[in-house]
């Protein structure tokens, strides 16, 4: 197979675009896709201070890499979730990238700051691990961005991630979630930082190809808690469809953004106020993160036989 641009040996075939590229021209294509998404969706400019959520995986490190190479002011944020060897390796990959590229990396440490890991939060409160983990990450991305004066949080969610979430929301007609699914979530409260997904046009295998071609050393092993996750089942199903009909994932998600989301958008009007405990924006009196951490701490105290209530530690 030949590169469409230079006719050299192709390394990456893009069936949904009916094309293939060599390493250099794939990177050129990739950059263009990401920059087009950033500009068309008005995600941020070179004046913004961007906080990139970095997990040590291919998507987040690739995103950080593209933004840095393209002249954006992008600082990484790694969150230690306390998931054993997986967290240790993902931390090491994130730090190694930052050191090798002279990039600024902030670290938030959940076990250190809140006294327990996300798995312990989950066990203590009866949540599934992925739910406690997602809630903790969303909360800390916003909090660290706010405290650090960042104007936008960028995550590495790619086309496959978004298509899988969309499929799940459609299968269960989660209209509330459908209304909130978008590549740009504007700030709707003074303490809520804008969130963007610059890879929403990028397929998962394209992000992996970028990372490999750029020599980025990322964590390949999956989080042990993701085994059996419903989102992986949806991704497998979509990959079966994609293999038979290239462009299916793109058509599903981009079509939703263009034609489906306007139909459910009106429902996205929940008023936000300040959490009574931490000040974060929330629709209730106390935000979901405070409720989870406080309940977990209370149950741990009961288990340990401590009867008096002590305030939950906050960083």
């Amino acid at each position, binding site marked *: 197979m030949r590169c469409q641009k230079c006719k050299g040996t*192709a390394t990456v*075939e893009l069936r949904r675009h009916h094309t293939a590229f060599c390493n250099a021209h794939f990177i050129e294509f990739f950059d263009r896709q990401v920059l087009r998404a950033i500009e068309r969706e008005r995600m941020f400019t070179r004046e913004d201070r961007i906080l990139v959520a970095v997990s040590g995986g*291919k998507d987040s490190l690739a995103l950080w890499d593209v933004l840095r190479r393209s002249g954006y002011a992008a600082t990484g944020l790694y969150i230690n979730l306390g998931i054993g060897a997986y967290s240790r390796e993902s931390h090491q990959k994130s730090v190694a990238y930052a050191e090798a590229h002279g990039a600024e990396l902030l670290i938030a440490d959940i076990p250190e700051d809140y006294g327990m890991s996300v798995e312990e939060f989950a066990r203590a409160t009866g949540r599934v691990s992925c739910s406690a983990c997602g809630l903790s990450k969303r909360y800390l991305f916003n909090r660290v961005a706010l405290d650090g004066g960042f104007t936008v949080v960028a995550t590495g969610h790619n086309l496959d*991630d978004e298509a*899988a979430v969309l499929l799940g929301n459609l299968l269960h007609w989660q209209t509330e979630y459908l209304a909130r699914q978008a590549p740009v979530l504007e700030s709707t409260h003074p303490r809520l930082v804008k969130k963007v997904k610059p890879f929403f046009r990028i397929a998962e295998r394209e992000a992996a190809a970028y990372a490999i071609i750029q020599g980025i050393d990322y964590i390949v092993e999956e989080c042990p808690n*993701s085994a059996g996750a419903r989102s992986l089942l949806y991704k*497998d199903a979509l990959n079966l469809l994609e293999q038979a009909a290239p462009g299916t994932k793109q058509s599903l998600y981009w079509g939703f953004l263009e034609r489906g989301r306007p139909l459910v958008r009106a429902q996205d009007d929940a008023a936000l106020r300040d959490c009574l405990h931490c000040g974060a924006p929330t629709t209730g009196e106390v935000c979901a993160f405070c409720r989870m951490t406080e309940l977990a701490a209370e149950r741990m105290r009961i288990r340990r036989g401590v009867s008096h209530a002590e305030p939950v530690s906050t960083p």
Partner: protein
Amino acid sequence: MKVVIRHQKREVEVAGRRRVRDVLVELGINPESVLVIRGAQLLTHDTQVGDEDMIELRPVVSGGGA
């Protein structure tokens, strides 16, 4: 050739010269879900590989999450 299937943490031997696409079909792996690497080089699915090669099938599907 030796095929390292990274996400299944196993290695298999596949005999004979053939295209990458045929190796994946033989192993029952959806080509959408992996990248194929020889040395440090990515391979397209029409690339011929033979007995002397060692290739890695690197999963691209990640997630879980909420």
